[in-house]
């Protein structure tokens, strides 16, 4: 029995099964707080604990799934390519605004977290908080952070940004559709893009573009900022 519970095929089936159930629940309820990840992570943590599956066995069993994070980051180059026309027509403004947004975003996280006395590993996990999860996890891992924290923080930031984003843009009186999509995508990645699509097709497309640009810039700027803040 224990051997079966620890086998790769059981763990793999369990992870995908729980995830599919969580997706189903999310589609039924449509509540942004019932994000499939925020549901399936605690459920799996609880299940593996109750079934006596060690974390090592769990990690080994689900390695095939985790591996796909890398290829997912790579194919984002394709998603970026799909938006190349948008990028060409507004290259200077998009690159400048996302660049400044990226720097202020990272610096504000670092200074606030330091003020609260957080250690390096935690700060390194928070720095890529506006970037899409697979990229954020690899950035966090590279700079000595904890990928698991980065993953959960990124999801929560995405939900928060998607909720408050349209309200902030309204208060600021942002009329530009490009500015609205760009802000949502660069602050709240895929979850911001989902909100941007509700605002309109232009907002959605630009938001998708912002995810890729923000991801690349954060990957470059995090080590640079770390170097200067040492």
């Amino acid at each position, binding site marked *: 029995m224990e051997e079966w519970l620890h086998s790769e095929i059981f763990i793999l089936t369990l992870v995908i099964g729980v995830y599919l159930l969580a997706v189903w629940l999310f589609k039924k309820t449509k509540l942004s707080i019932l994000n499939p990840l925020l549901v399936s992570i605690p459920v799996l943590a609880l299940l593996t604990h109750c079934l006596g599956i060690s*974390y090592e066995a769990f990690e080994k069993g689900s390695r095939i799934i*985790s591996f796909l994070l890398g290829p997912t980051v790579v*194919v984002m*180059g*394709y998603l970026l390519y799909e938006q190349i026309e948008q990028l060409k027509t507004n290259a200077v403004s998009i690159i400048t605004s996302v660049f400044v947004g990226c720097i202020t975003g990272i610096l504000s996280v670092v200074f606030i977290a330091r003020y*609260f006395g957080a250690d390096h590993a935690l700060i390194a996990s*928070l720095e890529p908080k506006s970037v899409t999860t697979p990229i954020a996890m690899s950035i966090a891992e590279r700079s000595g952070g904890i990928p698991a924290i980065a993953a959960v923080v990124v999801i929560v930031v995405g939900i928060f940004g998607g909720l408050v984003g349209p309200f902030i843009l309204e208060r600021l009186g942002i009329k530009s559709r490009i500015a609205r999509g760009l802000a949502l995508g660069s602050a709240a990645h895929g979850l911001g893009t989902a909100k941007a699509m509700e605002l309109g097709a232009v907002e959605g497309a630009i938001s998708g573009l912002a995810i890729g640009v923000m991801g690349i810039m954060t990957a470059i700027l995090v080590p640079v900022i770390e170097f200067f803040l040492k």
Partner: protein
Amino acid sequence: MLPGIFIVLFFYAFGEFVAWLLNGFIPGSVIGMVLLFAALGFKLVKPEQIKPVARFLCDNMALFFVPAGVGIVNALDILSRYWQAVLVACAVSTVVVIVVVALIQQWFEKHRKGAEDR
């Protein structure tokens, strides 16, 4: 679909190699992403070949970070110790990013319109 999978893995492997050359300054997967983008832009790779692989991976992306997310149980004590830091830093920084990006982009557009009018 297999050629598409091969191309994606090839760029991932190539990205990891460049990352190794750069002493791990930037994650290999991100370099692979930039290289794939460039290869598509220079028409070295056909977009139709990548599309099905990209769709499959991106549509199911959330599943891929579930296993790592479960590892959060090992990080609960650091999170419970610094939960205020995490909450305040992320909330403030998210608002900052939205405000900064939106204002700069809108400023650019107004500026350009003004120049065209003249």
